[in-house]
């Protein structure tokens, strides 16, 4: 089994952070993991992106051409990465900032107003974790328990408030995805 995930948004929206959390969640589960930051021209441009592969066997190609899953946090990322999702794949979209005028019938699009939902939690910065929560039910190789452990490692269990905020955001996203 292999989950290929693409993550994208404005620089500063915490795209790399989602990648890190997913990668560490993979480490927690003793999976093969490959995390690649956006590289090349995009690094200095409007959107940041990274990709994570989780696998229960050796990862050969680290390059994702078509992803099984994606999270996009802003409009340019949606426009750029919608075509990069595999037919039958799932894309979580932050509809607080993305207009879903164009869609694909063969891609499961989970739209949620992640920035607004994050505001409800008191911090718009955790829109990324809301989206991660919304994607979690669809991933094959990781789940909430592993992500919680990963957050403890990445945020640090000594930063209790920040950790709780992130966990609350993930839970909120999960709930919204399930309700849908």
């Amino acid at each position, binding site marked *: 089994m292999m989950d290929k995930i693409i993550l994208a948004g404005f620089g500063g929206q915490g795209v790399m952070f989602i990648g890190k959390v997913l990668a560490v969640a993979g480490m927690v589960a003793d999976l093969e993991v*490959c995390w690649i930051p956006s590289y090349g021209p995009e690094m200095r441009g409007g959107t940041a992106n990274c990709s994570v592969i989780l696998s229960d066997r050796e990862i050969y*190609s680290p*390059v994702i051409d078509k992803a099984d899953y994606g999270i996009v946090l802003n409009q340019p990322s949606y426009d750029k990465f919608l075509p990069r999702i595999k037919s039958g794949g799932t894309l979580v979209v932050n509809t607080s900032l993305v207009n879903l005028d164009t869609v694909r019938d063969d891609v499961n699009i989970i739209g949620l107003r992640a920035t607004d939902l994050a505001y409800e939690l008191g911090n718009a910065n955790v829109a990324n974790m809301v989206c991660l929560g919304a994607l979690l039910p669809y991933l094959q190789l990781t789940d909430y328990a592993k992500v919680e452990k990963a957050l403890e490692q990445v945020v640090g269990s000594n930063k209790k408030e920040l950790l709780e905020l992130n966990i609350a955001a993930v839970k909120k996203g999960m709930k919204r995805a399930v309700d849908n």
Partner: protein
Amino acid sequence: MVKKVLMKGNEIIAQAAIEAGCKLFFGYPITPSTEIIEYLAKHLPKAGGTVLQAEDEIGAISMCYGAAATGARVMTASSSPGISLKQEGLSYCAAAELPVVVVNVNRTGPGLGGLGPMQSDYFQSTKGGGHGDYRLLVLAPSKAQELYDLTMEAFDLADKYRNPVLLLTDGFLGQMMEPVELKPKPASPEFDRSWIVNGAKGRKKRIIASYALSNEVGEAINLHWEAKYKELKEKEQRWEEFYAGDADYLIVSYGTTARIAKSVVLNARRKGIKLGLIRPITLWPFPEKAFLPYKEKIKGAVTVELNTGQMIEDVKLALECKVPVHLYRRLGGMLPTEDEILAFVEKTFCPGLEEV
């Protein structure tokens, strides 16, 4: 088993150097290699070593030359334009037979280029680079664990052969994070240290130099180097084979593209195409031996490279031009997809396949 940790390629190289007993690092920052000097600046002093950001790349490699002359384990790292500046020093290190480990995180070129991955420095790495008839031992890792293991081993190889060793990676491998087992370094054998300079106390003075103004002496030294390079060719060729045994066609690729090629091999096999891979791990000496069993057997080969065709020359020589060898390449920092490589293989070797 040592617990695996998630680390960036460049940081893995730096950590491996510390584990290998590297005591001095001289460098100059350049993207996409900078994490190496940054990581070492933070961690090497704690391990009793020294990191010095030099005035330039020429200074850095010259400092390596001086430090290596004392028998200390020393490394420098850079990316393509910086490696060009180091060529003078590398020629001198090769001539004075100084064990220096050099990392090139290949970015795009020529000129300033961009930050993406390329394999455009293959010629520079394997065919000389600087002036004079010398060779570097060139190692080409393709995943995290190999970055770690080969970096550690590079120091032993440098000491064993008294020759600079070049670790050739690229901007992609340098930035990628993968799990790595930070294994303790296996014990090194005892290396001859009867040549180092550390003050002529109770012994005759020693000179480390590379000049030879008499042509007779010059030839003798060149013959000595030639013998060493022959020994390296005999003993140190390394490669990995992946589904090569029964292959009709071979992909030859190293580093990042070799990983993509592995996926291509599996995809091709699913379609009934007997495709295999030879992945050179040493780029110099080029693993000619890997091709011996296949040169009469296969129907063709494709090199997948991030340049306009550099390694393909060595592959053609290794296959003695007995079968057609084609090039599939992407340039300027772009990476090929699995699908486009497979499509090229099919179009080249099985033109009727798509009509079946």
